[in-house]
């Protein structure tokens, strides 16, 4: 076990963190600069962490949804001269009904097709007047579904039909969403690492500024762990308080984003849903843990270096 973590008495530390006042809290003089620095950096990092977490969760949801849709259905587009459209559609439906691994094909009614086109043509466009292809939604029901085989059958038996299994345009999106989720997680780790660095620097500054206090404490019989705990307690509290404020501000910011809707796409989905709102509440806990370990490491290392 490393020297810095030897003698770790978590129970005593927990009691120390929870107990208010007393000489233990006061043996280190209050230092405005490092106190404000720690509070501010913990708050700012927690604020950023909330958005990184929201990004990771939203992109995760998006990737999952796109991936499941990718695997869940295919679309068949039937485009034939106006007099042959119905016959071509029937032929395609016939092929699809007998495709192994496929569910019941569903011809999209005209109003549904109009709804799909509305974002491009507007709600008042007379879709009936346009040579719009028929769209057939084919759910994938079994693992024996063979998209390539179906494509060949359609070419042979219903040449006006084209199979669109969404793969070409959705797979890169799923990959991008997964990478965005990974970036969100990496951002969270970087934020934690940056917080640890800042708290370590602030703790070291406080230790250096209190060299005389540390000397006095040692002369009267204080162990290194006692001295370190005084600093650890202070910085852990500051990290937790700063992160709580930052997290609440971040959550408020997320709550003020527009609600998710289909037209808004990805951006309006950038938020928390359901139990996801509980996850940011872990940020102050993690910040306190980061403050605890960073300060403890810095304090014991510095105290160990000076006899």
């Amino acid at each position, binding site marked *: 076990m490393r020297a810095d973590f030897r003698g770790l008495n978590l129970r005593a530390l927990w009691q120390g963190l929870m107990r208010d006042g*007393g*000489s*233990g809290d*006061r*043996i280190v*003089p*209050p230092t405005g600069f490092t106190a404000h620095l720690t509070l501010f950096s913990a708050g700012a990092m927690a604020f950023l962490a909330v958005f990184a977490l929201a990004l990771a969760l939203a992109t995760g949801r998006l990737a999952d949804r796109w991936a499941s849709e990718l695997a869940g259905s295919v679309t068949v587009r039937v485009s034939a001269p106006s007099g042959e459209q119905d016959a071509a559609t029937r032929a395609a439906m016939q092929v699809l009904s007998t495709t192994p691994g496929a569910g019941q094909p569903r011809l999209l009614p005209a109003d549904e097709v109009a709804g799909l086109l509305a974002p491009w043509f507007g709600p008042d466009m007379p879709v009936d007047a346009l040579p719009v292809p028929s769209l057939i939604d084919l759910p994938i029901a079994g693992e024996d579904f063979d998209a390539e085989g179906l494509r060949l059958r359609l070419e042979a038996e219903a040449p006006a039909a084209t199979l669109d299994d969404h793969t070409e345009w959705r797979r890169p999106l799923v990959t991008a969403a997964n990478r965005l989720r990974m970036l969100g997680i990496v951002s969270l780790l970087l934020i934690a690492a940056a917080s640890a660095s800042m708290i370590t620097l602030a703790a070291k500054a406080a230790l250096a500024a209190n060299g005389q*206090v540390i*000397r*006095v*404490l*040692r*002369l*009267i*019989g*204080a*162990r*290194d762990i*006692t*001295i370190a705990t005084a600093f650890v307690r202070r910085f852990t509290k500051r990290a937790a308080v700063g992160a709580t404020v930052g997290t609440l501000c971040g959550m408020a910011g997320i709550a003020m984003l527009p609600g998710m809707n289909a037209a808004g796409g990805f951006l309006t989905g950038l938020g928390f849903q359901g139990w996801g709102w509980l996850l940011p509440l872990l940020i102050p806990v993690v910040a306190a843990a980061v403050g605890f370990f960073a300060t403890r490491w810095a304090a014991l290392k510095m105290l*160990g270096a000076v006899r």
Partner: protein
Amino acid sequence: MRDVGFGYHGGAELLSNMTLTLQPGMFHFLTGPSGSGKTTLLRLCYADLLPTSGQMVAFGEDLRQLTRDGIADLRRRVGVVHQDTQFLDHLPVAENVALPLSVSGQPVDMEALRDLLGWVGLTHHARAMPPSLSGGERQRAALARAVILSPDLVLADEPTGNLDWDMSVRLMQLLIELNKSGKTVLVATHDLNLIRATKAQVAARVLRIANGTLNLAGADL
């Protein structure tokens, strides 16, 4: 200590071949000219410095073998009145005096603390901040802090160095009371008059340090 030698930063030995045993319950003086090594010898006694040669043993422990926690434990058994008193200036006198209890995880008995402050005559300065105290008051507060853990050995490094005669006598009276209560006391001072005045009240052993060596002082002291 046996055949103890010490030199700062690996330089020439300030103390050499020193052999000394403090007799339990005895009042000791350590005297010698300025720069002779009185403070250094005291710092060796509470492991603030470690000897470069020889052996230092306190309470059955070889000080060179002590861990960091072991040194902290030793300092809880050795009360020290430092020349420069060493207070935490952001804490009031009472909290400074009670600090050894706090850092060793012991509860503070407020009544005992009041009694202790009364013993050193600082009851009315309990809430005062250390910088506001006079030199004599600071030394008495330092003595109170040194004895709050009821140590076996009390060391005082020039405790009267900055005090007038009356205040010096008053402080020595407290140290004599401590010794009479069974504590072993070692006081470093260059004030021979103070030593003589103290010896009139208590049997004291006087050690003289000069040119790096330690000798028992003659009958003139």
